[in-house]
């Protein structure tokens, strides 16, 4: 509820035809660099930031994020540290922070304890790619109880019926995966993509985010009108790897 309202409010601002959600793998290459990167993202107007708590089995991620997860863990990043870091970020920045991770991280922490902690920190939503609404009834109840919406996902393979099913229990926004596959590969924004977005739009009144393969101004320009939020994931990781955290500001600034 709260998340959707925040998004609607941002979109209502003049000239804001599309919002930006960026992604970061906590602990990669280090929390210190994460801190710098987030600072630049915020400074350059990013509206939502997805913080991925690293997991050893990132099944739905592509090679870049897989490697980032792995190196973050090898560097000793713990869930505890990630939570403390997230608390710091939420405190410092007036931006919408979400957690992205795999279900096992919550499960081992204790699902309710995790919700409680996230609430306390000020996290506004969860993205858990390996948790379909059919599993873990308790999780969905806790989400309502703690008012932290788990962001549901549409895929190009989702039928209209499935989309409606998902929409019925969705809150905040819907994450539309731009194409089949994992994160980090280029997406073709062709006619079938427009059809897909139209299908998404028909099935729900919630804002739509589009992610997977969004990496440049052209992509964001194309998305504008189709989607409410453009998600930049792998692109910033590659950027930081290649040019360091300072490159993030100008990159973000140039997207819209």
């Amino acid at each position: 509820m709260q998340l959707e309202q925040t998004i609607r409010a941002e979109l209502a601002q003049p000239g804001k035809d599309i919002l930006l959600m960026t992604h970061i793998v906590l602990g990669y290459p280090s929390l210190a660099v994460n801190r710098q990167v987030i600072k630049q993202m915020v400074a350059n107007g990013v509206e939502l930031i997805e913080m991925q708590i690293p997991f050893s089995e990132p099944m739905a991620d592509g090679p870049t994020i897989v490697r980032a997860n792995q190196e973050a863990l090898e560097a000793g990043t713990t869930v505890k540290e990630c939570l403390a870091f997230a608390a710091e970020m939420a405190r410092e920045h007036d931006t919408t922070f979400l957690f992205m991770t795999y279900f096992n991280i919550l499960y081992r922490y204790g699902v309710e304890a995790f919700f409680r902690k996230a609430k306390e920190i000020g996290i506004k939503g969860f993205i858990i790619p390996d948790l379909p609404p059919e599993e873990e009834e308790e999780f969905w109840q806790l989400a309502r109880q703690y008012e932290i919406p788990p962001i549901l996902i549409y895929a190009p393979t989702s039928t209209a019926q499935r989309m409606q099913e998902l929409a019925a229990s969705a809150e905040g926004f819907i994450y539309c995966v731009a194409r089949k596959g994992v994160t980090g590969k280029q997406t073709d924004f062709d006619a079938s993509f427009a059809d897909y977005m139209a299908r998404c739009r028909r099935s729900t009144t919630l804002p739509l985010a589009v992610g997977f393969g969004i990496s440049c101004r052209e992509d964001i320009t194309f998305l504008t009108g189709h989607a409410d939020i453009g998600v930049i994931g792998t692109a910033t990781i590659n950027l930081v790897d290649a040019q360091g955290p300072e490159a993030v500001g100008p990159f973000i600034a140039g997207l819209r």
Partner: protein
Amino acid sequence: MQKPGYYGKWGGAYIPEVLYETFKDLNAAFAAAKADPTFWQEFVDLMATYSCRPTPLTHAANLSRDFGGAQIFVKREDLNHTGAHKANNVMGQGLLVKRMGKTRVIAETGAGQHGVATATMAAKFGLECTIYMGEEDVRRQRPNVFWMEKLGATVVTVTSGSKTLKDAINEAFRDWVSRMDDTHYVMGTVCGPHPFPEMVAWFQSIIGIEARAQISKQFGKLPSRVYACVGGGSNAMGIFQGFLDEPQVELIGVEAGGHGLDSGRHAARLASQDASPGVAQGYHTMFLQNQEGQMMDTYSVAAGLDYVGVSPILTDLWEQGRVRFEAATDKEVMAALELTMKREGIIPALESSHAFVQAYKEAPHMQPDEALIINMSGRGDKDIFTIAQAFNDPSWKDFIITKGAEYAA
């Protein structure tokens, strides 16, 4: 009623949304196949004419005599085409693929056994085939890579994570979410998201159906105990299903004890204190993971047992007390392997040798009018590099050194 795909609180289908329809179709196709008696018959016929089912039940007369206890019977899955029980599951899923009209299969492999079986099935059914294999395992199991390639499969080396089986599974899922329309993922064991545990268990049940009929015919009564090694758990589930409804038959799963349960270098989930409940690779079971839920590096001399998770069906049976779990160390495994070769002329795979260890420990304390069955999940001659190295055989090493020098020249 229990939700489908759950075994007690274990199991489930923790899958990315993009696979939702794929799993819906798979569930429907599997349910239809299961309900259709001609499907099972087609499967049995295929296994009878392409592999060599029924595989024999061999009486290990010498060792039974030596131990002076139970009559030891060995279910000979090693005699399957491609050398292990993996063929049962793979050929079954192959028939399902044909029904679903898909044209491409992918699979993970650790020991390489499941990869070879899948590549074989793909050749037989005219399917495109890609096999994911951890870099570590590619290094350890080059002969299997060679055969997969020769059978027409593409072998992709997986360099992420611990570069072993679990990472190959992740990578296979990544392929699948990219290309689900024409592709079926041939999961190699009774793990992963529903319906895989149920499906793989169903195809592997052919082992137990045969074993039960054979022991009744050859021994005149049920065995007292049945032993199987447990990696993911498919060969164990295969044979156990023949005896699950007979409470007097004790079922024993043997996990990889590696350097010992206290060493931290093992792959024992249910036989050790080191595993805890978790959700990964699409299902809920006991995993070897740290406090925060990160999977640990496991270890075993047997690549096929070197895995962090275990079948949710077995976890449930363990929790119910229906299946007892034990672990065998590498050292015990090599000794049991050597003994079995010398006394019975059979060469169990390193994986299978784990089951032999526990049976040999218990046989002497049983009565000569009792029988036990060991499921010999595969043959060991495929493992010559690992076995010869584990025995530290000097002439083998000389041979490899000479060959290496010859190739390098």
